[in-house]
Every structure is written in C-alpha cells, then in structure tokens.
C-alpha cells in the first residue's frame, strides 16, 4: 500500500517537527553559548568561549551554584524520605483517612508554583523561617515528594507482599525486614527518585525566588540577569544547568523509569 507508506512518512516528519520544536531551545542555547555575538542570530558569529570565561570568573555565579547544590541535594533527600514513607504506608497498610493522607502528599504539584511561592513566603516569614537556604529546602521537599512517591510506589507494586511476611516468619523484626528486604528491593527506585527530585529542585525558580532572600540559587540568578537585558552569559549558565538536569533525568530513567515503561507497554 503506497498510500499508507506516504502517510507514514508524512506522520514521521510531523513527529520530527514536534521534536525540533521541543529541543530547539535547548540546542540553540548550547550553540549561542559558544557564539561571540552579543545578540545571537544567523549567520552565527565566531566561535568564542568568552561567556564561559565571564561566568567562571564571577563569584556570584559560584555562590549560586554552591547554593543550588546544597538546596537540590538536601531537598532530594528530604523529598525522597517523605515519598518513600508515604509509598510504603500506602503499600503496606489500609487505614481510615488514607485518601486524605495520600492527597496531603500528592496535591502540591497541582497548585501553580506562583501561588505556592506566595503562600510559602507569607507562612515561612510568619514562622521566622524565610530568607534562608533551608527555607527553600523545606518548600522544595514538599514540591518534590510526590515524584519520589510515584516512582517508589511503582516499584513496591512489583514486590510480592508475602516477601515481607516471610522475613517476619524467619524471625526478623519489622525493622529488620525493612532493612534487609524492602530497602534493597526499592534501591533502584530510591536512586531514581533522588535524581528526579534533585532535578526538579535544581530547576525550580518561582518558590526559590520568593523565599530565598539574598541566598540566590542558579535559576534565581538567571532570572535576575534576564530581567535586566539580553546577556549571552545566560546561555553559558544554561549549558551547565541543562547538562546537570539532563544528567539527573537520564540517570533516573536509566535506573528505573525506562525499565518501567518497558514492562508496562
């Protein structure tokens, strides 16, 4: 059927166009970061590492990078702990008000970030907790926990519930069963959850901007540069940001999600 083949080609090109739209900003950001023009366009200017030299010499950027590292690392650990505990409670127990309990942890991403940012700013400054790095960490733990919960819950779904009971029958306490059975079984999902929550926290700017005070993270620093004017430094910072978050997301997928998709499809 030639008509069918023609249609397949057209549809294939269409899918390609969508991928171009999705990845164009990422690719162009990388290209522009190595381009000498102050306002990048086509034809490109000369190859230049000027913007990289500029940002690497900027102590503000280094401070922001360090802040981002601390924030995304700590929120990933906190968010994953929250997510794991919820996923395990959901897997193991049925109890009254389980629905509201799950909603409590799963709802935050459905609320627009700008609203969470305002709410967090008002509440944390009321508690005297705003303007510090750990204000961002607290807020991000709430925002990232659902992602960890989803991944770890999927993994627990694949576990035979009798496995835990068998450990108890063999004389293990509940805590020992957790340590020697559940945790090892969930390990790939936990690593994957850590990477994904770190990536979410690393790129989040609205809440971080509102509650951070003077402790800028990388996205907040970008936001402030961009507010001024066009500055190709952003592309150079963007390259590092993309590399970091892509590495995290790809690691997360390699550890767990891609196996998951393979199994379910």
């Amino acid at each position, binding site marked *: 059927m030639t008509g069918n083949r023609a249609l397949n080609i057209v549809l294939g090109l269409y899918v390609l166009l969508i991928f171009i739209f*999705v990845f164009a900003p990422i690719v162009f950001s990388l290209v522009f970061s190595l381009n000498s023009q102050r306002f990048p366009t086509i034809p490109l200017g000369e190859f230049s590492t000027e913007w990289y030299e500029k940002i690497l010499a900027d102590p503000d950027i280094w401070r922001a990078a360090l802040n981002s590292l601390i924030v995304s690392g700590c929120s990933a650990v906190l968010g994953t702990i929250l997510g794991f505990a919820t996923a395990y409670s959901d897997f193991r127990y049925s109890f009254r008000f389980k629905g509201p309990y799950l909603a409590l942890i799963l709802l935050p991403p459905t*609320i627009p970030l700008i609203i969470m940012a305002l709410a967090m700013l008002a509440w944390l400054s009321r508690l005297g907790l705003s303007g510090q790095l750990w204000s961002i960490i607290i807020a991000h733990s709430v925002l990232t926990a659902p992602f960890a919960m989803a991944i770890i819950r999927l993994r627990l779904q694949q576990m035979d519930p009798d496995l835990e009971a068998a450990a108890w029958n063999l004389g293990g306490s509940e805590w020992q069963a957790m340590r020697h059975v559940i945790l090892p079984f969930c390990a790939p999902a936990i690593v994957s959850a850590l990477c994904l929550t770190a990536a979410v926290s690393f790129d989040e700017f609205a809440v971080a901007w509102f509650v951070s005070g003077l402790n800028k993270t990388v996205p907040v620093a*970008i936001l402030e540069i961009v507010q001024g004017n066009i500055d190709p430094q952003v592309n150079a910072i963007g390259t590092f*940001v993309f590399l970091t978050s892509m590495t995290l997301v790809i690691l997360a997928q390699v550890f767990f999600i891609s196996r998951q998709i393979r199994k379910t499809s």
Partner: protein
Amino acid sequence: MTKRLDLYALTWRLPIILWQLVFFVGPVLFMVAISFFVVRNYRMQPAFDFVNWEKMLGRGYVWDSYWYTLFIASLSAAIAMLIAFPAAYALAFRASENLRRWAIFLLIIPFFTSYLVRTFSWYVILAETGVLNALLGYVGLGPYTMLNTHFGTVVGYLTLTLPLAVILQTVTMANIDRTLIEAARNLGCKPLATIWRVVIPLSKTGLIIAALFCFILSFGDFIAPFYLGGSQEPTLPILILDTTKSGQQWPRAAVVAIMMMLTLFAIAFTAIALAYRKPKGAR
C-alpha cells in the same frame, strides 16, 4: 488488628502527616487568612477585613486580567492538544514499540530541564533580528514581530505543555484495544471516521486529563507571558508577582491567588466529571 499503638506503622505515617500539615496545608490556609489582613505602614497586621477583596474585585484591570488569562490558557491548551494529536496518533499506532519507548524517554527530558533557560532561548530565536526571522529572510519572508505578542506567550506555554500533551495522548491511545479499531475498519469505517468515532471516544478520559494538565500549567505560568508576551496584558500570575514584589501588598496578591485556585478547582472538577462520565447508552 489490636488496639495497641503500632509504633512501626506510626513511624512511617505520623512524621509525614505533621510535615505536610505544617509546610503544605499551613501555607495554603495562611494565604487565605492573610487575604483578610490589612497593611499599614508597609507592615501586615492581622485583621478580619474585606478591604483587600473589595479593592481587588472592584477593579476593572483585575477582571480584564482574569478573563485574558482564562482565554489565553484555554487557547494554548487547545492548540497543544491539536498539535500533539497527529504525533501521538503516529507514535501510538504507526511506530514500533521500541520507537515509542524512545520517543517518550526523550520527551520526559525537557519536562525536568530548566524552563527558564528554554524561554530565554526562545526570546533570542523569536526576536526581530533573531534566528527565525533570519531564516525566513532567506526565503523572502518577514521580518515578523513575534515577541511581545500573544503568539510569543503561546509559544512559551507550548514549550511547557507540548511534550506533556504528546506523552499523555500517546500513552492513552497506545492502551486502546486494537481489535476494536480493526473491527471498525472491517465494518467499512473510513480511517478518519475511525479516529473520530472510535479512537477519540475510547481515549476520552486520557485526552481530557491531558488537556486539563496543559491548562493548569499555562494558567499558572508567569515566565512566558512576562518574557515572550511582554506582559502588556498581564496575566494573573504576573499580577501576583507585581503585587507581592512591589509594595509588600501580600494580602491583595493572596486575593488573586485564591481567585486562581477557585477557578482551577472548578475547572478541574468539571473536567474530571466529564472525563469519567459514561457515554450515553453505555452500560
């Protein structure tokens, strides 16, 4: 189950409940509370006063902004769904399983990479002397003004929502029972009619949920309308931003935030009710 306090179970449940109550429910409820607070001498004071509500709801520009945000977010959600559909259809029915897996794998990546930097990149691409106009210039078109227009805003929204729309639609359609489609074809249904009368009704739930997600993301985003749309017509998120950052008017910003949340609840509720409603005549 004994009445004895199960320490092990509580260890996994209680700290989470407390943490989420203090750092999720707390902020949201407090935001509702401060919408009734008053600001004197640049300081917020506890009160129960409707002044912020009267001030915000009584102003034309707030409502202009409200309807504009609703309009542009719905429009962009509709565009995302329409653009995504042929691609999702191709990935669900024409692509091999392996190819589909790779496509989804790739489309997850942008979802977790900096939206801010991608928007800035669009800014440079869409500018008057930018890449797109330069390319169009080679074929004798343009230059077009794309920044600071509705078009710019929608491109920004699509950056956020299009990958998600394609993923959700693909997964939904890939899960349709193939025999039903073959049955329709065997009974003489034309390809387009099959899509319209079999594929779409069967994937209704997934499609509505996907559209809802696109809408929520666009509705709450302030980056695209600010940087690509030029915020000539400020959307509600921009209004919140301006009101919070300049002049310490947190209570008034809270009013706008609550308007947004109520609207989102109403729309999400309607969408979910529609999504799970059984079609007429179905058992």
